[in-house]
């Protein structure tokens, strides 16, 4: 399973992804984990970054012509921005990385939502 580590940044709520070195706002720069062990180790480490992050979790991604996109529509929305205002959120910068995400198909339940409901 291909996975990416994501969270919201504490100070401003911005959606961020783990690049392998640091947290990035761009999904295209996210590190794609191929093995469960390193993915889960990174998630465990992220959970200790309590002054930087809120609720880190792993999302499933899929390969699309040499690039990647989240399988879940909810996670694609987090990586792009709202569909009613295309000039808001990460999608505002445009470009090929954004276009790939916007065109991606695929459906899966988001672990982020499931975790949120469980905690509620």
């Amino acid at each position: 399973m291909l996975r990416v580590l994501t969270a919201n940044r504490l100070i401003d709520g911005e959606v961020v992804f783990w690049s392998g070195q640091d947290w990035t706002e761009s999904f295209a720069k996210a590190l794609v984990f191929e093995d469960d062990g390193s993915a889960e180790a990174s998630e465990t480490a992220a959970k200790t970054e309590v002054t930087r992050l809120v609720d880190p979790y792993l999302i499933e991604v899929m390969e699309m012509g040499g690039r990647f996109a989240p399988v879940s529509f909810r996670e694609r929305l987090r990586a792009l921005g709202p569909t009613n205002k295309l000039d808001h959120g990460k999608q505002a910068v445009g470009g090929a990385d954004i276009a790939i995400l916007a065109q991606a198909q695929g459906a899966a339940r988001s672990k982020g939502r499931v975790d949120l409901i469980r905690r509620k």
Partner: protein
Amino acid sequence: MYLYDDIDRRMLADRAQEFRAQCARRLAGEINEDQFKPLRLMNGLYLQLHAYMLRIAIPYGTLSADQLRALAHVARTYDKGYGHFTTRTNLQLHWIKLRDAPDILDHLAEVGLHAIQTSGNCIRNLTADPYAGAAGDEVDDSRVWAEVIRQWSTFHPEFSYLPRKFKIAVTASPTDRAATRIYDIGLRLYRDADGELAFEVGVGGGLGRLPYIGAVIRERLPVRHLLSFLQAILRVYNLHGRRDNIHKARIKVLVASLGPDELARQVEAEWEASDKAAADLPHAELARIRAGFMPTGFEALPAVSRRFEAAKADSRALARFARHNLAPHKQPGYTIVHVSLKAIGETPGDCSADQMDLVADLADRYSHGEIRVAYEQNLILPHVKLDDVPDVHAALDAAGLATPNIALISDIIACPGLDYCALANARAIPVAQDIARRFADPDLAEKIGELKIKISGCINACGHHHVGHIGILGVDKKGEEYYQLSLGGSGEGDASIAQILGPAVPAARVAPFIDDLVGVYLAERRDGERFLDTVRRTGLAPFKAAAYADAH
């Protein structure tokens, strides 16, 4: 309108200062997210998909022009230049940064605004009739009683940790414009046979996973006992409401499990045993609050405005606006003007900072400095002279705020849905936009007449789908957005829960589906019947047959 006194102002300043310190402790790592989350929620700050969301309370939907300007300033300075008015008549800002939240609360406090009672298991921000003080059919100003309850409920120590959130709505008119029957407590003020003001008290209404219409547990409550009776209801709920299951914790579940008669018996027993005088509001205090809502500055005018009539004769657009966006005012020569936040193709309930400033300026110039927020996600200028309607219409029209569609098919309620909300299953906004575009022709919309479509992106029902003439609920089918339609709901005086029509359909099918339903209605309706009336008369069968014809 009522102005906050020194106690309120000090309370808001203290609260903002307290939250600033809490944010600093969180950012410094002195408290963790589990400890901080309830604190930020008590100040209306949620973490959503893309950013923090600040839900600002608009107590009983009443704003001064200065307050609306302050909201515009906050939206422009700290958000992306707009805000979203909700079915709870609050304003949500969807792009807030935690580091800015304390400054925002300071700005809001300066004009008597805040985010208290917009989250948490407390008595939430009150809802009242958006026509209060202007409606020709009201027996009193419902805001007086909403303000009484606000002062009693804010930070009430006994009711700050209820089993679940608790919402109260007040109306003082036979026409229910505050959806009181779907509230935890719905208060309906009337004059009894002796001419005395009394409340009919409904309890246990609510939508969400388990939708219920509230049951009347007291038909006549003398107004002087309002607070002691509310206290009795809250005490019974606080003691017996379930705390073991969040889905069964609202008072509606207690009412359903005990039955309204047994709940009423327990409330009456609690009330009889209580020290009523200690809880009820002293008359002098009621008079002080009432004075804050006394109407001022109405001119003696003829009931008909020649200027307005001539302008309508000259302008089809103004005449159409007058047919749909005006309501009768109690004062001759005045009217209530609806500002539509449902321009075709726009996001229902969204209002830009520039639009807020414009409405604030119009309120100052033409409406005694007052604005109201309706739960249908529109704004209202409550006190406009008929003479001034052509000018108000022209100004609103230039800003995209004069769509003549109040209560028509494109006046759609939609929650933020999956575009913003972390809890949503599916998007609501694009579905509303699709339907509005399909019925953009104002002649067609007028021919269809009153039709209330309400869309929620999840079962929590912020979009009131259970009480839509057509309700639309977004569901998650293995990660795909599907929509379940229901018919025959109403949140008004004739309240009812809509019935599910059939299997959920994908997003692209929703607007054509609505087309089919409208086609059945136009073919079936009898003289004067609204869509809702036809559904109630015929039942779902003809609608189901047409809408699912392709499926057979």
